[in-house]
């Protein structure tokens, strides 16, 4: 597991080293954009067990920098309420990048208002999960989104 809590050149270099020449990951990876330590810890545990490499951004600025510098991951998991930039702004940024336009994005947030859900899908989200969530269900949803799930069962 690589946890890029700070967007260091080393972390980005590691992310790049995991890509083949076509820019596709040889190992499925997740860009996790989540500011809560507790929540991120559990998500990292769940997805690392499934064989995913995790890149973690803790706020809007760090997430934006990572989106601009690392190659596309298999899936992006995005929280809605973040410091500096909210989830919808980051989603719009992801979709504006040609190389990231088809990356599956899952919104994982405690904001379950209809307006926000509709807005997220209009901006190109592929899935929307409201916290609290069922861990097993989340893993299955993520596997469905991910192009090549590395293993089965939790």
């Amino acid at each position, binding site marked *: 597991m690589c946890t890029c809590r700070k967007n260091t050149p080393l972390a980005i270099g590691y992310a790049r080293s995991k890509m083949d020449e076509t820019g596709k990951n040889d190992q499925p990876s997740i860009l996790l954009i989540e500011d809560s330590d*507790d*929540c991120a*810890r*559990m998500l990292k*545990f*769940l997805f690392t067990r499934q064989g995913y490499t995790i890149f973690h951004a803790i706020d809007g600025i760090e997430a934006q920098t990572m989106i601009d510098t690392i190659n596309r991951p298999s899936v992006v998991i995005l929280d809605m309420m973040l410091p500096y930039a909210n989830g919808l702004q980051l989603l719009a940024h992801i979709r504006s990048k040609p190389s990231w336009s088809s990356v599956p994005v899952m919104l994982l947030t405690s904001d379950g208002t*209809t*307006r926000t859900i*509709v807005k997220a899908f*209009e901006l190109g989200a592929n899935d929307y999960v409201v*916290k*609290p*969530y*069922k*861990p*097993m*269900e989340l893993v299955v949803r993520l596997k469905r989104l991910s192009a090549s799930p590395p293993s089965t069962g*939790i």
Partner: protein
Amino acid sequence: MTPHSILSDPLTRLAAILGIVFISFSVTLLGIVVLMRLWRIVGDRRKRQFIDLWSPIFFESMAEIPKTLPGILASDWISFMQLYNSIQESILGEAKEKVNVLARRVGFDRVALKLMRQGRLSHRLTTIIALGNLCEHSAKNDLQELLLDKSPYVSLLAARALLRIDSRLAMDRIAVLCGSREDWSPVGVIEMLNEAGADTVTDPLSKVAAHSPPDDAARVLGFLEATKCTTAVPLARDILGREGLDDRLTIACVRLLAELAGPEDLPIIRGYLQHHNWCVRLHAVKALGRLGSIDDEENMISLLDDENWWVRFRSAEALANTSFMTMARLIDIKTRVSTKAQEVLSPFSITLPSRSKVSI
């Protein structure tokens, strides 16, 4: 001059003694600050180590509980409880129950019952939340006592915990407190009621609203509205039918109808458009915006000239919100109303409020 001769002067001696006292006091204070800081650093490090050790165990237990579990020192129970609460608040379903099995296996249920009655307020509050998450039935009596605690934090958290443990039994008592405890945070109460679900809360709250003094009943009607208890609509109709109704109750009932009623209640709502209290007029016109037909257009236009700005503004908003409204129609209305009415219509005649493209 020798030191002895200097200190023989009483004033110099006093100054020397004072100096020594101050220096000793400063050094002691500095020592205490350093010790407290070290204590904090050691505590934080210990807590981090505990979380690093126990987080994977908790996560693992959502699928299968590990066969061997590390022991927990008495001083680590607070960290355990905080971690347990944080995990319980972020998950749902079967995983929640499995985490509870783990907590009981390490004896957390017995420890939590003890911690609830002792220690700092923050720790007691964390314990009350934990007992609710744990669905600990043996804590019911203690939690019921805490419902009457003078601290709104303690009593509201105790209510929430009781609802998690046994919602059907606890709700009758909690419904009464929802009306009488003015110090309970409305946001906290709504969160608690939403979590319990409309099916559980509607009947007990409706009973309280029907038989309580106006202040309490109005507060409870507000909670029924906020938790979208549509089955409370007949109650609001009944209360509105009473003679000499208190204004606070009228406002609460019309507000509930404005949010939850269907078109069949339009005749009742129309009857409140000219009420002497501006809050009632405001909610009545708001309801017309949601439910009203083209026949209500003139009613809404007439309220654009209301003496109260809020009623005028909500009337303009209601007009713009109606299903039959178009921009051309709104501009036409604007040309034939007073200057005061034109002013409130202006923001809406630039852009109509956006309507979701998705029908829900």
